[in-house]
């Protein structure tokens, strides 16, 4: 009797799950022309990226432009930037759960799914950078030989995967509850949500420490690195979230008040101020003391011995950051959508330059033996990077395609129940 009941409930569960999968598939494959164009172009970029990655995997990393002098390049630059972006979901979590700021509360789940997509991209960037991806299992704790706690890379693996788990578990839990029309058990889920706040700070601190701990690289061996990372993370992530939310409210029924966006923009302004202040503090220290260790700064901002590839980039980034800061600081420009979006775009690009290539490459120039080698990514690296970005955007798009209908109530379990009844 009990066994039959169990079998029946299992059967019911499988039927529900199958219905869910079918519906999800219908959701993601149905959309407007723009949606199809977007998805197919992303798929094309992903395929091209994969083909280039395959070549890199077969021949070895010699297919990239990295050398013994500059041994980390575009991949790790993107990785650093993406970890920062992912940490920014916390800028939505704090107002909505700690300060109960209603306008943001409805959209936190989407922000967390965005953080999860960023995490996937970050982990992929590390994976493509590895020389021997086939030996990845050496990194697993207990199965491999993870060097914890001495190696910051081991910490990073744990922190990033933990954050990915949190940012999948929490939104999925909330969405499933929403799907079934039930209230979430806050006693259960709130600890996880609150955990994700220090964890977000943690992932970026660990990534900063990864660079910070290297005494061999004076450009990175500055205590100000971790605060700078956090400050710039809290600029770039929310900026892209603002843009994404405007797109979301345009293409779906989700209502996102302007107030929510402006609040986030205000937080960005403070974060950008901190970022600029910390950068100014570093520049003062390097230029005023004027020791040998300022060579990397000189390379970045002025050029060193006629090597000045990065100089125009970093000054462009500085200009973008300062402009964006002003745009976000002044309420009238912050609260006008056109200037708000301009500011967001400037920050996204500016912080990418400052924290990606503008951070990773000067650490290697000059190298510990004084050699200067300028690094420029080549086609393989560019294509693989585009491929991974496209993959992240595609994942996020598909997640949104399912999550938004659940949030708005369009896609819920009641459909199935109705379907079952009317069968």
């Amino acid at each position, binding site marked *: 009797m009990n066994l039959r009941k169990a079998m029946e409930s299992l059967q019911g569960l499988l039927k529900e799950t199958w219905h869910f999968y079918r519906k999800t598939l219908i959701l993601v494959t149905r959309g407007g022309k723009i949606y199809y164009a977007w998805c197919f172009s992303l798929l094309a970029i992903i395929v091209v990226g994969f083909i280039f990655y395959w070549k890199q995997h077969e021949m070895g990393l010699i297919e990239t432009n990295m050398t013994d002098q500059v041994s980390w390049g575009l991949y790790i630059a993107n990785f650093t930037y993406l970890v920062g972006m992912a940490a920014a979901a916390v800028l939505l979590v704090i107002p909505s759960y700690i300060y109960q700021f209603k306008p943001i509360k409805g959209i936190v789940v989407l922000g967390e799914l965005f953080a999860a997509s960023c995490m996937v991209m970050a982990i992929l960037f590390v994976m493509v950078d590895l020389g021997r991806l086939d030996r990845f299992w050496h990194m697993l704790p207990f199965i491999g030989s993870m060097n914890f706690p001495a190696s910051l890379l081991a910490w990073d693996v744990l922190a990033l995967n933990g954050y990915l788990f949190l940012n999948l578990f929490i939104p999925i839990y909330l969405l499933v509850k929403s799907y079934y029309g039930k209230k979430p058990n806050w006693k259960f889920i709130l600890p996880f949500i609150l955990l994700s706040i220090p964890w977000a700070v943690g992932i970026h601190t660990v990534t900063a420490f990864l660079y910070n701990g290297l005494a061999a690289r004076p450009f990175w061996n500055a205590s100000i690195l971790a605060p700078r990372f956090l400050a710039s993370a809290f600029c770039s992530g929310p900026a892209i979230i603002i843009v994404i939310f405007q797109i979301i409210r345009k293409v779906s029924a989700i209502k996102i008040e302007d107030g929510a966006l402006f609040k986030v923009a205000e937080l960005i302004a403070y974060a950008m101020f901190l970022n600029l202040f910390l950068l100014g503090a570093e520049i003062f220290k390097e230029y005023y003391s004027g020791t040998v260790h300022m060579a990397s700064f000189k390379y970045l901002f002025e050029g060193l011995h006629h090597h000045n590839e990065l100089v125009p980039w970093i000054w462009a980034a500085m200009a973008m950051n300062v402009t964006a800061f002003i745009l976000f600081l002044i309420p009238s420009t912050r609260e006008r959508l056109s200037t708000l979006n301009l500011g967001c775009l400037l920050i996204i690009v500016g912080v990418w330059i400052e924290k990606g290539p503008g951070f990773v490459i000067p650490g290697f120039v000059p190298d510990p033996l004084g050699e200067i*080698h300028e690094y420029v990514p080549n086609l393989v690296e560019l294509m693989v990077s585009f491929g991974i970005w496209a993959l992240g955007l595609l994942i996020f798009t598909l997640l949104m395609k399912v999550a938004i209908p659940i949030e708005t109530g369009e896609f819920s379990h009641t459909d199935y129940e109705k379907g079952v009844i009317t069968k």
Partner: protein
Amino acid sequence: MELKFIKMQRNLHTLAIILLILSAFFSLALGAGQEFPVPPPPFTEGIFPCSQCHASMETNRKKRELKDEHTKIRMHHAETMRWCLDCHDSKDRDKLRLYNGELINFTESHRLCGECHGNLYRDWRAGIHGKRTGYFMGTGKRTYLLCAHCHDPHEPKFKRMMPEPPPFRPTDRRNVK
């Protein structure tokens, strides 16, 4: 009285013999080059033993530039203060001459160099001056090289040499030959 004298003589004889044995032992131990296993000295082919020619020649002690033989040797080693016969013994050309008059073989020429270059000689004996090859511990052979193996005694300054090629630059990513 005579008995005492005979006894003294005998004692003196034994003492002399003992001293002789001791001095022979010490001279062997200190000088003998047995503790420095060196390869044969780098002679020009056929030049040794020098007495082949010099035994029958007259000794001319005058400091001069050699015109008939040994013209390839350029004296560039304290040449204002010394010349050939300050190092090469004038009577026995198969030997070298130390300051105190002692004659040594060419296989121990390091003792001669060490008279002026004491610091370096001390380093060489400890094994830290000059090229070392082979084994430095265990049962393998320790090798030393004579000063003359690296430094031409007449013109000791190291000649400039052509360096090996530099490494490929990092911009030359594939460095195909």
